């Protein structure tokens, strides 16, 4: 296990290097001269030359990469041209907590909705319960999060007035307000995820229930409830955890949309606005942060997967 962890970590470091090269070169393709943009009205040939040297832009591309990555690693991500704030503060202190809070709530919503319906659909296979549940799952799985968000705002926010439709309230300053503000966004983001998890849970449970060891347990006279909860569900956990983990990236995609619909100041909205404003440093750092998060989530899922599946541990 330890050896595997070490190997996987090595792989992760290589990946981190590759994505940093990608991000660096993609942003090099950006139109316009960053020095001219940074100087703005202070532009004159001398200050231009000075800043260019300062940023290392007169050196070779490899040295430029070296300068950029060493700055990134030490947390020096530059400043936003528009707000003047530190990019690292905008991303890590302001935006990231919002996105994480939203993702966490959505995950809770998704699991609470999906696991029971997936299990029920598998146990009542080919009945109306199964058809309704899976029909809803495919439906929600196909519903674009930005459209679902608008529909929910229209029904529960505007028509019924049950929940606030816009903005973010920090859970530290107002715990209750933060949850009511998160209800619609979390449902919007969680619905897609719930559809996916419900379908996986159902198909894995159906598979497991057909396995010989389940028949043995039933033949031994084990209570049918215990067969499902003790014997079958444990084996369903592996594919479900894998999908939950692998699709966290998909959740991040949904988060970008959901944040825009509900005006939540998360990292998705930050990066969207940064692209529209052509703030390349902010785009660069945000994309790096999201990719790094994604890589570490995958690493975590991989580890958990090995832990849950003893057969993989030996391999």
């Amino acid at each position, binding site marked *: 296990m330890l050896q595997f962890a070490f190997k996987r970590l090595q792989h992760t470091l290589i990946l981190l290097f*590759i994505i940093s090269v990608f991000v660096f070169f993609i942003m090099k393709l950006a139109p316009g001269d960053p020095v001219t943009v940074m100087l703005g009205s202070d532009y004159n040939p001398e200050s231009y030359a000075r800043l260019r040297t300062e940023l290392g832009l007169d050196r070779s591309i490899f040295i430029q990469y070296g300068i950029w990555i060493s700055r990134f690693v030490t947390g020096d991500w530059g400043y936003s041209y528009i707000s003047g704030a530190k990019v690292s503060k905008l991303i890590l202190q302001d935006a990231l907590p919002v996105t994480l809070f939203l993702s966490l709530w959505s995950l809770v919503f998704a699991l609470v909705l999906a696991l029971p319906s997936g299990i029920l659909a598998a146990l009542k296979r080919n009945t109306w319960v199964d058809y309704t549940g899976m029909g809803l799952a495919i439906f929600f799985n196909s519903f*674009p999060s930005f459209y679902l968000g608008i529909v929910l705002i229209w029904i529960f926010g505007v028509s019924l007035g049950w929940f606030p439709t816009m903005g973010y309230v920090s859970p530290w300053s107002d715990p209750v307000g933060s949850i009511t503000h998160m209800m619609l966004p979390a449902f919007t983001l969680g619905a897609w995820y719930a559809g996916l998890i419900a379908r996986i849970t159902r198909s894995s449970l159906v598979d497991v229930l057909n396995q010989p060891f389940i028949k043995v347990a039933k033949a031994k006279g084990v209570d049918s409830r215990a067969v499902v909860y003790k014997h079958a569900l444990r084996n369903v956990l592996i594919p479900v955890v894998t999908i939950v983990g692998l699709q966290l990236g998909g959740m991040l995609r949904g988060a970008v949309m959901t944040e825009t619909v509900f005006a939540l100041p998360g990292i998705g909205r930050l990066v969207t606005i940064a692209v529209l404003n052509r703030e390349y440093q902010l785009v660069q750092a945000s994309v790096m942060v999201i*990719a790094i998060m994604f890589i570490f989530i995958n690493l975590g899922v991989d580890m958990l997967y090995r832990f849950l599946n003893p057969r993989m541990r030996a391999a």
Partner: protein
Amino acid sequence: MTTLNVSATLPETPADTQATSERRLSPSRLMVLRFCANRGAVAGLIIVLLFIAVSLLAPVIAPYDPLKQDYMAAFQGPSWAHWLGTDSFGRDMLTRILYGARISFVVGFASVSIAMVIGVAIGLAAGYYGGLVEAVLMRIVDGLLSFTPLVLAIALIAVLGLGLQNVILALAATFAGMFARVTRGDVLNIKGEPYVEAAQLLGVGGAGVMFRHLLPNVLSPIIVQFGLNLAVAILLESGLSFLGLGVPPPEPDLGLMIAEGRGFIVMAPWISGFPGLALVIIIVGLNLFGDGLRDALDPKAQIS
């Protein structure tokens, strides 16, 4: 639905009938039969074909010009003159949805096709040559896949700029990695087969082996990937346009129309509502079709 209709000698048990008839049919015919037996998949295919047909025929059947503004007709609800109402500029919603579906399909097919060509070439080369070629190519693919699709697309749009072409390119880049990974995996599985070695011994060159002998045998998972990615591509395209990072206004794009209607959700819910509904139906259709295609081509595969 088509049923298996195999005459000749009748085997004794129903199980035998199934096994024998499956053995006698060519793989492609078997695939078609399996697909047709899946009601959801057929429904999906019909929905998709219907939408493709009406979007292709948009210039002929659309009742209005998708870009023509008519302030006298703004914010009209569904009526005989405008079946799905009009938007804030008085443009006919039905017309714009027909043209919008057209953009969705163009972006979907174009981006996934480009991704397929590039990804399959990378996957074939990596799987066939192995060694350093494989290591370098697959690390690049790993890197591509570590960005979530939307984020990579946003980063590329940031430098390429807005517009239909750039959206297609950005989406193609995000999907190429998936095709490469799938292709390489399957090439590794069949590389050691006798017919591949035979071709090599006969002096067939690298490209010949890859495209004439390996590619036809790894096509199924590639086609499955194509079907599943179409829905994701269309979803991403409309999402990018919704964020303002895709097709710029006044083009009739479904994502853009949903975004434009947001501000009028109380007084004119149809402006966001109908384009969204059209998008949902297209995605449901593509998902059902993609799932059916996967089940038909690769019966062993589970949802994953």
